[in-house]
């Protein structure tokens, strides 16, 4: 008997919550990010992008008030991210799940997104395949193959490089970068002379760089995580005489983001990188974004996390406008498919088939501008899709 009463009470409680959710005039967005631990800075930058968008466009859209609920995963914890998503759905009654700086966070949440039918916005997580894990997922950041495949093709077709050597950090993103650069490079007719992998936390690259030098390549492709590594590899390459213009250095954009450029100093000159967002790109939308970001964050510059969060919020706002405030997952994901807009990063859209991001990939070279080294866009490749979805030509 007591059991039955308890069950009725529980049922009544949940029913009360459900009706409460229907009557609400707010749209709740659950933001799942690694706020504590080694990736806390990424979470901070991403959230700054999100809040800047809300600050600029108001917290009301289609007659509904946007409410953020923040949850901390503490790092690449798939199980914690999953539980947080479950709690956001059953306890906080959120309408939209967003954030995800790290791939495992998105992996953990995929099943919940599908079962609860919630729009799930990947604002960073960059492993290509995760978008396939749930039909309610949409990505507003970048995928590693997207930018590196494009760079590989460009290196052969536009820069005339015939053979190259790859040197990447020995972990997931490094492997993805290595294979997608090689794919683009060889498909365009180039030859990979050799591929080496370095430990993730590697302070000294000289032995690896010597091996690269022995095979005398026209170009080296490198991929290392941020922090102390860009400076270390820059120095090792310069010491061995592997530097532009004699040998071309290719990399993904993080290698020469503003803080890394400072630590690399002169060794960064002439490095060619590929990325979806360039802080210094001359564009009125970008200028407005960067100025607003500086003002709101004590002069700190936005990075890839910030722009992912900013555009993710844009997608949520525009989707809600299209559905007239209907926040159900099915309505929102339909609204998101095929959406296109002008972002501070340049024109971008959501592929209606894969729900993945389609955008301009920028090839940049580190050059001196007004006495300061910075990334200068030397080539733009419009409407690049993720090559692993068979969309590449």
């Amino acid at each position, binding site marked *: 008997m007591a059991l039955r009463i308890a069950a009725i009470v529980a049922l009544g409680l949940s029913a009360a919550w459900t009706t409460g959710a229907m009557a609400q005039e707010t749209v709740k967005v659950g933001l799942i990010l690694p706020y504590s631990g080694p990736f806390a800075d990424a979470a901070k930058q991403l959230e700054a992008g999100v809040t800047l968008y809300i600050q600029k466009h108001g917290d009301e859209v289609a007659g509904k008030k946007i409410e953020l609920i923040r949850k901390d995963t503490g790092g690449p914890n798939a199980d914690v991210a999953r*539980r947080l998503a479950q709690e956001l759905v059953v306890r906080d009654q959120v309408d939209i799940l967003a954030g995800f700086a790290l791939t495992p966070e998105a992996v*953990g949440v995929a099943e919940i997104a599908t079962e609860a039918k919630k729009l799930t916005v990947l604002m960073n997580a960059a492993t290509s395949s*995760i978008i396939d894990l749930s039909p309610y997922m949409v990505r507003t950041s970048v995928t590693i193959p997207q930018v590196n495949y494009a760079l590989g093709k460009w290196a052969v077709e536009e820069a005339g490089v015939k053979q190259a050597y790859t040197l990447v950090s020995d*972990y*997931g993103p490094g492997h993805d970068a290595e294979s997608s650069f090689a794919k683009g490079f060889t498909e365009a007719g180039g030859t990979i002379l050799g591929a080496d992998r370095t430990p993730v936390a590697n302070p000294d690259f000289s032995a690896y760089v010597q091996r690269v030098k022995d095979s005398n390549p026209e170009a080296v492709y490198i991929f290392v995580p941020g922090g102390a590594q860009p400076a270390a590899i820059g120095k090792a390459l310069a010491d061995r005489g592997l530097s532009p213009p004699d040998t071309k250095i290719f990399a993904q954009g993080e290698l020469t983001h503003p803080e890394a450029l400072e630590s690399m100093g002169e060794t960064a000159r002439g490095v060619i990188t590929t990325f979806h967002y360039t802080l210094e790109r001359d564009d009125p939308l970008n200028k407005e974004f960067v100025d607003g970001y500086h003002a709101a964050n004590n002069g700190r510059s936005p990075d890839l996390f910030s722009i992912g969060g900013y555009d993710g919020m844009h997608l949520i706002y525009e989707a809600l406008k299209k559905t007239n405030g209907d926040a159900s997952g099915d309505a929102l994901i339909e609204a998101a498919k095929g959406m296109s807009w002008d972002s501070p990063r340049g024109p971008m859209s959501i592929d209606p088939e894969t729900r993945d991001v389609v955008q301009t990939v920028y090839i940049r070279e580190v050059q001196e501008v007004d006495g300061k080294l910075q990334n200068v866009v030397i080539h733009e490749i419009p409407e690049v899709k993720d090559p692993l979805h068979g969309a590449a030509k």
Partner: protein
Amino acid sequence: MTHNQTSAIVESPARWIRSRNRWTIFEILFWIATLAPLYFFPAYLNLASQVAITALFALSVDLVLGYAGIITLGHAMFFGLGAFTAGILSSRYGWGEPISGLLLGGMVAALAGYVTSFLIVRVQHLALIMVTLGLGLLTFELANSLRWLTGGTDGLTGISTWKIFGYFRFDLWGYTSYAYSLAVLFLGFLICRLVVSSSFGLALRGIRENVQRMPAIGSDYKWHLRKVYTISAAIAGIAGALLTQTTNTVTLEVLSFQRSADVVVMLILGGTGRLYGAIIGAVIFLVAKDQLAGINPQYWFLWIGILLMAVVLFMPKGILGGLSRLIRRED
């Protein structure tokens, strides 16, 4: 120990052990209380199930750390082995039956525990911490480099756990996962209770208090330690497999140093050398984390740190130790 007690032990040791280990009313009430989330806090069931899993892991560590005195900072190794075994079974071989996955996870961890126990019994004190820490880090790096098997930094995808007994589906609210985790925790607790209340458990405490004296009274302490280490590894492995099955995900984080360290913090909070200390510690740590991180997602660790210092300073035997001193139930 009074004169009466001593004579009771001499007359019938078995009866003395039994008399010390009767179920008390507190214990029965405690286990009834664990059912409360199912009826009163349905929105917290997913947290409750994670607490139950962590409590089972904490129990396994308490067996070696609290009872046998093996200070370990690498027990996540066994947790992770169990978690990856269950995950790989489902993701790579398509076998998602939960009970068998749980047992296999426990067996793989037990095997690893048995093999490493030969190393563990050779060292003590600081060297012991270093060896357990080193083994934990090695396992982490091994899993990282076996990307084809473990998914590397991205973690394993495509795990799907079948219905329990072909009937109970894992639901979004977490009714099934909590009931399942709680049942496994209770079974694990019964095993631990059996271990610590047996003569074998007494021998372990003897080793903890004075390892030199044990050979003198004819006790093969190395064999005892190997046995308890293997049992503990098996339970940790089962806890890991449970996490995989209730969340359908595994990442390298299950093997991380953080997990090994957190569980020691839980034991210190709850009180080492008491089975309920392990459970209470896990409850306090995770509930505090959930509530504090809800208030401020960036700095919740600060409060855990302050709580830990307060407990160590004012209740050196942990929260449960402090409580039992308060109500004068010395043991």
